[in-house]
């Protein structure tokens, strides 16, 4: 019997007025799994991801984290969010804080840790992404790739059970994409459970345990990368992937 899923979406729906963005998503992510979500823009990938920590309110269905439905109004969402790290396309580092300040803010404010303990944990997290030497720098002094690695450290430092990545390399210069993907692979090798919305087909093919192809607010196809990329069953998947041939 497989272990219970860390994340389970049960007929998840999201609509803006008459516009259905998610039309009933069912998805399970198991401990230690890396699941990549691919699909055309507007297919609902990011909306689905943002429903997983309630940055976006779903309009139907359930989001189960470790067996608890976090869409219920009585859930302490701030406690839940500490267990779910999120990395954004635009990094979203706090420009008024140093790199270390960015990484330790939640440790200090939410978990009430003293500055010595927070700094120790923060430096360890920065070490993991190879940026301990930039602890005193400000975000604007870093390259895009470095900023995104700091953003990963900011999420990792809270020791989440699950990490959500929302197109983490889409805003990067091509030459810095590699360093971010490398850190993500290291995280995966360390056993982190990850749900990654990405356009990096090469990464999805090489690193993912499972690939989800979404279109028009629904999961069209899913399976091991070799299957989805090598022998897609659906016409829409084939058409989408055809645009990426030659890449990755």
């Amino acid at each position, binding site marked *: 019997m497989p272990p219970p899923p860390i994340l389970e979406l049960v007929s998840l729906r999201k609509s803006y007025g008459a516009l259905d963005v998610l039309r009933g998503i069912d998805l399970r992510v198991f401990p230690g799994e890396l699941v990549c979500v691919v699909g055309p823009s507007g297919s609902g990938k990011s909306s689905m991801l943002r429903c997983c920590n309630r*940055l976006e309110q779903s309009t139907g269905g359930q989001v189960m984290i470790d067996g608890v439905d976090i869409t219920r109004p009585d859930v302490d969402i*701030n406690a839940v*969010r500490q267990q779910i790290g999120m990395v954004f396309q635009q990094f979203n580092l*706090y420009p*008024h804080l140093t790199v270390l300040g960015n990484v330790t803010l939640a440790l200090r*404010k939410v978990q009430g840790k003293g500055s010595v303990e927070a700094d120790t944990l923060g430096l360890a997290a920065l070490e993991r992404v190879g940026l301990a030497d930039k602890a005193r720098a400000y975000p*604007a002094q870093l390259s895009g790739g470095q900023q995104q690695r700091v953003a990963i450290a900011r999420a990792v430092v*809270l020791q989440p059970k699950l990490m959500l990545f929302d197109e983490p390399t889409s805003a990067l210069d091509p030459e810095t994409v590699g360093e971010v993907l490398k850190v993500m692979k290291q995280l995966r090798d360390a056993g982190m459970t990850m749900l990654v919305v990405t356009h990096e087909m090469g990464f999805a093919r090489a690193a993912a345990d499972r690939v989800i192809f979404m279109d028009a607010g629904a999961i069209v196809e899913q399976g091991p990368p070799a299957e989805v990329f090598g022998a897609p069953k659906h016409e829409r998947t084939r058409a989408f992937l055809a645009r990426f041939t030659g890449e990755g």
Partner: protein
Amino acid sequence: MSGLQRFLDTFFNAEVAARAWPDILRGLGITVGVGVAVTIAGLGLGLALAILRATQRGWLSGLIVVFVDVMRALPPLVVIIIFFFAFPLIGISMSAFTSTWLALSLVLAAYVEECLWGGILSLPRGQSEAARSTGLSWWQCMTAVILPQAFRVALPSLTNRVIAVGKNVALGSVVALSDVLNNAQSATSNAGNPTPLTMAAAAYLVIFIPVMMGARRLENRMQWRA
């Protein structure tokens, strides 16, 4: 008497200055006192209004916008006069000091709210999303992430407003507030010589130049590398 001598005798008359000196000093105390009190109350109330508006409750935002627009549209002089002369008619009497302080504080609060609100709006939504995604509450996100950045954006216009409203303390003279300019004008009439006005001008320089220098230092210090 040469032209220069006449000029010095008119505007820099030592005898007149010696007589006016105590009044000018007392007025200076009043002006600084009201100015500091207005700055504290105006910044505090303006900050509170901006935070309340950020809670995005429709009716509350509506009320705040009405307050801000009315306070920015009315001449501060009229607000002072209303507090001093009209409010006693409905049973609320206040001193010249209080009515000037209250009126200017409300006016400053309106501008401060607008400056800070503009600063809050200028921040990308990703800032609060990132903070909330790590478990920060709305309030923690506001105080640790949003307001420090909004304050930096708003700082230049905030200092301009503090200085502009601070100079408006002189409007208190309509309700007989003995501020430095009012006292200087009285002394000028009594002496038949405008030297006290020169002294008042000097007093304004002494008050406001340090404020401007302090503001500039603060702006420089708050500039993170961009």
